[in-house]
């Protein structure tokens, strides 16, 4: 079981470079991460987007593009579509978003999944490496589904359960987060909120935690103190407002290191935030490469 992001880095270092389609790498921080990831032989990038803007960004970080493949596509949606075509046809093993609105990438993924007659609920998986916790924690969905229904939550869980075995979690502990807020009745309440967990099963193996309130899971029974090792492996977020806010708490809680991706049957699609700097983008590349390395290993087995 991979318990930290430093372990994923070791996997990535041992792997052959992963051919990666990069959509609109048009910003110097992003280009710096691409340059370093290539130099360290994590990725072999294929840059897709507006050539002049890509070259300008590369110039800012002294990245010589002579031996890097560039596919000129000026339309934003088309550039995302080209990247997903390449992933689907196995021309590349991984896709990463650059300076492009995420919705273009989501639309390209959905279109490709429909064409492949696959489940079309896409979701974002955010992994936390927390100091004091002996395992990685996956939060999902942190990026796409505004108010997921029961069937959408099940698909979100299925997506998470496809990626966790790659990290050695064959039967992860899953908790669907439910708030412990005052559930006032009748005239006392301000509005309705369904406070019951929705997901009942999955196509994949997992262990459902009976406790529904995080506090009851994280506090040790015998001394009442916080034990981060009690955290579930997967936490299903109730909605996008919550998933988005919680996933990025690493900006405040310095004990957390975060990486995110949208894992598909074709391979990982990395979705660095436009707010991320080169260090964070590099971390996502390394994590994606580790996932691809594990996919390769499993398919060879």
């Amino acid at each position: 079981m991979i318990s930290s992001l430093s372990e994923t880095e070791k996997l990535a270092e041992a792997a052959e470079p992963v051919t990666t389609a990069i959509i609109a790498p048009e910003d110097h921080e992003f280009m710096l991460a691409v340059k370093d990831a290539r130099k360290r032989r994590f990725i072999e990038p294929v840059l897709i987007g507006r050539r002049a803007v890509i070259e300008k960004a590369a110039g800012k970080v002294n990245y010589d593009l002579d031996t890097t493949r560039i596919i000129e596509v000026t339309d934003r949606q088309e550039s995302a579509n080209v990247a997903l075509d390449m992933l689907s046809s196995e021309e590349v093993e991984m896709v990463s978003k650059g300076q492009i609105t995420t919705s273009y990438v989501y639309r390209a993924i959905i279109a490709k999944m429909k064409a492949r007659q696959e489940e079309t609920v896409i979701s974002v998986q955010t992994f936390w490496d927390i100091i004091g916790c002996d395992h990685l924690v996956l939060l999902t969905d942190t990026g796409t589904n505004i108010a997921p229904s029961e069937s959408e939550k099940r698909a979100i869980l299925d997506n998470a359960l496809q990626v966790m075995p790659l990290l050695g979690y064959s039967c992860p502990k899953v908790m669907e987060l439910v708030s412990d807020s005052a559930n006032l009745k009748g005239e006392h309440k301000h509005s309705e909120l369904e406070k019951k967990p929705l997901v009942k099963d999955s196509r994949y193996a997992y262990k459902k935690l009976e406790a529904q309130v995080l506090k009851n899971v994280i506090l040790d029974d015998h001394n009442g103190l916080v034990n981060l090792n009690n955290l579930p492996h997967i936490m299903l977020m109730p909605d996008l407002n919550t998933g988005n806010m919680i996933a990025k708490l690493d900006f405040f809680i310095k004990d957390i290191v975060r990486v995110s991706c949208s894992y598909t049957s074709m391979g990982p699609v990395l979705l660095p935030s436009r707010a991320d700097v080169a260090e964070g983008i590099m971390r996502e590349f390394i994590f994606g490469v580790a996932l691809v390395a594990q996919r390769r290993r499993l398919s060879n087995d």
Partner: protein
Amino acid sequence: MTKLFPEIQQRAERLKPQRCVVSYATDEALLKALTIVKNKGLITDPIFIGPRKLPGMHDFRQAASMQISALMANECHLNQEADLIIQGSEKRQHFITSHLEGGVLDKRAVYLAAFYDGNRKQTFFAIDPLIAIAPTLENRIKQLETVTPFLRHIFKRKVYATALAPIETINPKLPATVTAAVLAQMSARHQFGKFLQVTGPLDIDCALSKVAAQRKGVESKKSGNFDLYILPDTNSSYFFSTFLKYIGKVPTIGVLLSKDRHLLLNSTPSTVSERVAEITLGLVAYNFSGK
């Protein structure tokens, strides 16, 4: 020992001692905290209502059940024996509904959570992790009308708030972005007075980090330094508080503010110091509303 929540402690410095009643008192940590608050001169000997008398409970009144305890505590308040009702081990929902005026939650009611940022050595606040499940714009406006004067009293300056949403652009499919934009515009037009400035919608990374805000082109002078976080709904706010408290180890307390009466809920603070800070916050709120 680090002085938690310094702004709240400062506001409590010149308060006259208040009288408190603790409903369903079974918790020794609460008793310890009340003794500290009493020794600071902020309260007189509290009235304890509960199933059994514990050492240190000088004024103890027996109640066999939570319901009876709630009724007795309410009577103490009505008979002017006690100013502030403090939740002991009663269930939260039961406590709130038992003690609100006429049993009804008024539209201005808001649970104000307070966090101590050890890096900045400052307090910041968030609404509303407990009460307003999916607040309408009208709820939000009323909550800000309740919270703003109190926070102005705490900080003794203009209050800087951010209305959070999953993205920083306005998208009708994401109601939080629309509400945030409206609140920001209302504050720009001084509809909350001159002492509240709301920035939004902001994604949480831009609210917490100046660098992130610069990268996304939504730079705000207060990024990383807001006094109040207005979260989209109770789910996001509840988990924001819970994750900060249990995973971030951020000292977390709170108080329920409403039009006529403030209730001191037991937010199960992690330490006695935090419990002392929570009682102090309740006393400051009670005293402020009486002005």
